[in-house]
């Protein structure tokens, strides 16, 4: 199963939220990383057929998703950035309602709801009204509803927003377990969400895809360009003006800077193994070295 995006473009006024995007998504977990305003949600809404592109097409195994209609939606599970819900519904009723909309019959729905509530750890709260749920609990319900129809394509838009660290780890294992032979697209601006589970990463900025590679390939791009350097605390800001600094860690009366730079910085810098965060900040998040005055 392949999702092919061909010259996908969407404008909001003069601004291109998606700027001639062409890529192919395959089974496995693909992380979509980008800063706020990169166009991730726009891209996702087009993939969910919620938004029509101004130009270009999205094809599932050669067939346009817009023309597939219900057949495409049958394969789709979607966790939006904000989980829409009705506060007076209980968790069980809400999932039942969505199961009906997804075309499950009564018996199928009941079994699936039991299983999913258990998987997301919300079985004890099944009779509780959603209005009383915490943010983390709502996110888990959001994930449960997306899996109701056992989708072959799962699209998650900032699914870990509002989750505490333990919940985020739980979420990652849930998704990793699910993604064996399915296409999962996980959109986030939190690198650690993607780092541990994604097989490939898309980096997006200003409507453009800057990179579509595996984590290893991305890190290899910056091999020999990442350094750590201890500097006096008072000079840290000056270094941040000169170099792309991806981490600042206090170390007594000094600070340990993590720098991404093609050339080794002066002052005793030690080479370090590049991480996904280094690559992300280098490509999406920071000004390029040399543009700093």
């Amino acid at each position, binding site marked *: 199963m392949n999702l092919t995006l061909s010259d996908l473009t969407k404008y909001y006024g003069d601004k291109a939220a998606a700027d001639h995007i062409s890529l192919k998504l395959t089974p496995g977990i693909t992380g979509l990383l980008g800063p706020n305003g990169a166009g991730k949600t726009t891209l996702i809404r087009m993939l969910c057929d919620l938004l029509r592109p101004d130009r270009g097409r999205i094809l599932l195994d050669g067939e346009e998703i817009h023309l597939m209609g219900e057949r495409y939606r049958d394969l789709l599970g979607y966790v*939006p950035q904000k989980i829409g819900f009705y506060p007076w519904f209980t968790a069980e009723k809400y999932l039942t309602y969505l199961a009906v909309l997804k075309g499950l019959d009564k018996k199928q729905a009941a079994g699936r709801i039991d299983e999913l509530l258990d998987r997301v750890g919300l079985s004890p709260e099944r009779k509780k009204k959603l209005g009383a749920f915490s943010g983390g609990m709502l996110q888990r319900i959001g994930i449960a509803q997306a899996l109701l129809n056992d989708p072959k394509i799962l699209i998650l838009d900032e699914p870990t927003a509002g989750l505490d660290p333990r919940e985020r780890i739980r979420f990652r294992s849930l998704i990793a377990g699910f993604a064996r032979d399915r296409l999962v697209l996980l959109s986030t601006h939190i690198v650690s969400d993607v780092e541990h589970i994604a097989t490939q990463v898309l980096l997006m900025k200003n409507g453009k895809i800057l990179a579509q590679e595996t984590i290893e390939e991305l890190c290899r791009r910056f091999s020999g360009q990442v350094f750590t350097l201890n500097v006096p605390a008072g000079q840290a800001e000056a270094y941040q003006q000169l170099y792309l600094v991806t981490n600042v860690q206090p170390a007594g009366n000094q600070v340990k800077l993590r720098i991404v730079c093609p050339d080794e910085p002066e002052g005793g810098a030690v080479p370090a193994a590049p991480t996904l965060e280094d690559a992300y900040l280098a490509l999406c998040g920071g000004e390029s070295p040399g543009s700093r005055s």
Partner: protein
Amino acid sequence: MLLSSEWRKAWSPLTARLFLGFVCLAQIFYVSYNTDPNYREYAEQYNAHADSIPAEEFTRMLDSHVASLISEHSGSTGYGAVRIDRAYSRLRAASENGELVFGVSPAAEGMRDQAMVNWGFVLFLLYFAGSQAIAENISAAAPLLSVTRHGRRRLFLARFAVFQLSALLVWAAANLSLAAFLTFRCGWGSPGSAIQDFVFNSSPHVWNQLQAMTAVLCVSLAAGQVTAAVIFCLIYCLPCSSAQPLKSLVITSGAMVLPLILSMNYKNTWTALLLPCLMQNNWMWNDYRVIKISFICLSPWQAAAAELTLAAILVWLRIRKGGKNVSI
């Protein structure tokens, strides 16, 4: 299953059920407040006797009335003495044969006066549709629902069906409550006896109490359903509906409530013909009147039938389009 899910979702807020109860009681309070304290005694007298004017006198009154109508319309083309005569011929024959009973049927009169049913019905539907549209907007569930198999066309049609069924429920509940109240309050006498009460004494229709009420209630039901469909279309299908449901609600309220206010004067046939004023259609059967459009003369009920049919067709076309292109 989708229909029952949407029904449960629409009716789960307590306020909807309370408002329904209020609508059922509104007309009962109105009738109680506006009727004579001796209504029950009078109703018993009517039900027992019901013939307070001799048949010959009624025939004379009828002839006088028909003559005045002919004189009034004699200068107009398209209709005239022959048409008026034809309209009243059966009534005159029934009068000459002594088949008519003259008098006010208190229960029928109470049932035909649907002022509060009309207002309650419209206000309830505006509240019902508006609150749901606003709740959908606040919940931000639309994108989630739109990605499901049935979350577009079928969901839209299911919501429309639920709304129409809810309108039927409200209409039926209000009228049944009123009918039950009137049965207890003053009884119905003999529904099958041919009547010409003072409200009807210039009507060309030879109807009994039951037939008169049936005509009024059937038109009221049809008008109510079409009104409900128009309210649904305005609230859910206006361009601003998904992003600004409150704006849709305000526009729809103006479109529905203004005719009601204008039509309080029944003598103005045009305003009384507007949706949802047609629900109160008692006036349509009371006398001989025509609506002239250029050289065409229509009875009010013919104009109403054409209006309802046209409105129903336009609504159906809009619902078909709305089901295919659900705004997200």
